């Protein structure tokens, strides 16, 4: 790979365009709102979607309070982000540390920790202050938009959720380079 191509690859992978979804409010946001919900996967932080499609889906499913949702677009510097989705080394590292802490907690307390608790442990006890964010994924819960036919086996249908639903949680605002309003949409029923 030539130097320019390498540099381009490097820059493209460090600065990512991501999407933040919120209920539509009277005033436009000037910065993303931190999520403090207890079911937030990776704890308190500012959550962004990798794919605009998922940002819209989230608006329709979970940001319905005012009948409209808004999507904001950000450029995020991912240099100090733990990328468990696209970076193999980071994924293996994260998995190893996660299971190590989980095993210790289970052994000492007889309790299984939640993913949020494990992540809190990294930050609070492991003092991972230099980790400005984490990229992670699950699979879409709504199979309606998948373009493959379910597999039928023993009279049951199984859908292969081939598309990753990628998110980033940001702990340190300094990596958010831009934050701008992108669109306002009326909530629709997904079912």
């Amino acid at each position, binding site marked *: 790979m030539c130097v320019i191509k390498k540099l381009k690859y490097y820059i493209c992978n460090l600065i990512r365009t991501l999407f933040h979804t*919120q209920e539509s409010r009277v005033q436009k946001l000037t910065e993303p709102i931190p*999520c403090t919900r207890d079911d937030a996967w990776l704890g308190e932080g500012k959550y962004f979607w990798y794919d605009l499609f998922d940002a819209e889906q989230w608006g329709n499913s979970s940001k319905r309070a005012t009948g409209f949702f808004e999507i904001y677009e950000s450029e995020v510097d991912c240099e100090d982000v733990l990328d468990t989705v696209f970076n193999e080394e980071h994924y293996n590292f994260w998995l190893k*540390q996660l299971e190590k802490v989980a095993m*210790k907690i289970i052994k*000492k*307390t007889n309790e299984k920790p939640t993913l949020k608790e494990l992540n809190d*442990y990294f930050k609070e006890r492991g*003092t991972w202050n230099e980790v400005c964010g984490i990229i992670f994924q699950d699979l879409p819960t709504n199979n309606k938009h998948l373009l493959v036919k379910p597999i039928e086996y023993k009279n049951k249908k199984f859908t292969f959720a081939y598309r990753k639903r990628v998110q980033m949680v940001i702990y340190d605002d300094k990596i958010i380079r831009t934050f701008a309003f992108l669109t306002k949409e009326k909530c629709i029923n997904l079912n």
Partner: protein
Amino acid sequence: MLDLNNLEKKLDKALALETKESLTNWLKEKRLKKYLSSFGEGELCQISSEQPVKVKLSASFNFEIKVNSFNPTYNPKLAA
């Protein structure tokens, strides 16, 4: 760029110092906070009862809060 070796070293150091008591207390504190946040925004204040409040979080994880010795301020941010 993140130094994964350094992150692992810091984590291993923290884990090596953990005892049953330290981890149990840390986890209990987390879950108590979570439980209290389920009441929503507000402030806890003392009441005149001497009876402890028992909070059951899971089969093996219980809290017993003695009301007269417990007066935390609770003011969670509005959930996003």
